[in-house]
């Protein structure tokens, strides 16, 4: 399988990359790890005339910046997330979500920015980022802006990114959430897309849920929040019955489709179970 011909650029800075994206418009695609785009080009789903490699743009650090939060460079690979000590110390849930993706070879090159900008409904990172209220920094020709991860996605494969915009970093802000967790169900342990992914973050004080955010993956055209279930939990004392009921409410909020991997009914029931389990883990074990 050979790739069709294209032109290749590897700009040295973001401004130059934005300029190239503006210059070539729809003909150009940004290349990060390549684990999605190269496959789509081989399958003739995409045929960009120009690839703009981000290899010289750095942006691969994961660091905690006091006052700002956990800053994850868009070119950090999934295995960078898995192996990051600073991330494991604060949000192991994000490392664990990354670890459930694909397999080692793909995790070594696939990037955070690529996973997000592809906007695949079953992507594993967006739900856990949304549950932790993360934001995304976008840089374009006309300057930069910050968008809530939750508002980034507009449909399968679609985001609010303009043609000349590049995701440069993801920021998990400092927060009161005391725990978070992501549970994925795939048809095999390695290299499988999520049939359902459920991410939760909770703030628990004296066994009372002060706040909760639940984000569901692969059950709607974009990752979605289960806001009714979140509201239901707020102010209530933790009990098995409460978490089970939250699962039932969350399963009523998703709108999955039936496809080759699972039926809509099955996905809905997985949301019910996984919401309960993820809540329990986040409450009992913190950010895991």
């Amino acid at each position, binding site marked *: 399988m050979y*790739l069709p011909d294209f032109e*290749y650029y590897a700009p040295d800075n973001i401004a130059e990359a934005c300029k190239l994206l503006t210059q070539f418009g729809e003909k150009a695609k940004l290349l990060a790890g390549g684990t999605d785009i*190269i496959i789509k080009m081989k399958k003739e789903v995409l045929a960009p005339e120009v690839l703009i*490699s981000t290899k010289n743009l750095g942006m691969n650090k994961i660091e905690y910046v006091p006052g700002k939060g956990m800053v994850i460079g868009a070119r950090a690979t999934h295995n960078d997330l898995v192996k990051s000590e600073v991330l494991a110390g604060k949000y192991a849930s994000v490392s664990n979500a990354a670890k459930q993706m694909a397999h080692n*070879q793909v995790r070594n*090159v696939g990037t955070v920015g690529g996973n997000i900008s592809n906007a695949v409904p079953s992507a594993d990172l967006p739900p856990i980022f949304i549950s932790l209220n993360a934001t995304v920094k976008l840089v374009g020709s006309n300057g930069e802006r910050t968008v809530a991860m939750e508002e980034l996605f507009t449909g399968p494969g679609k985001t609010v990114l303009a043609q000349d915009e590049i995701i440069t970093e993801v920021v998990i802000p400092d927060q009161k959430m005391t725990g978070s967790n992501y549970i994925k169900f795939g048809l095999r342990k390695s*290299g499988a897309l999520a049939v359902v992914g459920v991410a939760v973050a909770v703030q628990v004080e004296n066994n009372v849920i002060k706040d909760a955010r639940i984000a569901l993956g692969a059950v709607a055209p974009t990752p979605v929040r289960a806001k009714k279930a979140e509201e239901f939990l707020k102010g209530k004392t933790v009990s098995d019955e409460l978490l089970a009921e939250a699962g039932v409410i969350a399963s009523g909020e998703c709108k999955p489709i039936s496809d080759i991997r699972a039926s809509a009914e099955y996905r809905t029931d997985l949301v019910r179970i996984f919401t309960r389990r993820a809540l329990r883990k986040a409450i009992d074990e913190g950010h895991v």
Partner: protein
Amino acid sequence: MANCIVDKDGVKRYLVTVNVNGSDFTKVVKANTLLVNFLREELDMIGTKKGCELGDCGCCTVMLDGKAVNACLVLALDVDGREVTTIEGIADGEDLDIVQEKFIEHAAFQCGFCTSGMIVSSRALLNENPSPSEYEVREAIAGNLCRCTGYVNIVEAVLDAAEKK
């Protein structure tokens, strides 16, 4: 890009230098040249196999700056100036690597098509984690498919190689 020429047909070709198994190789390639094709067609290193070519099977696994990656998903131009280790670079001259010896000892292959990738993935694991658990070995080769289903012997070979280090 500076190192780019246009050939007689108007196609752009780019100068690229990749360090493969310790030696620098400089070639002029089209932008669409994948690392696996660079190795096999430009350098005649055909130990790296082409299986699915979609990043599922792991036959084309090489180390890029010490990390296992699928050579079928990486552009040669994107690895300009970086270090690649292929199956040809695992042995030290005539002396087989301990992983290769243990693969032979445990009969850890049947048809052999997955073996290059299996050995590179295993070596990458042992470089990073000299004494992995069985789970860690299985995790490390999860991106390498063996359709003869010789996984048990492969895992035993890698564990044995680890203990002997």
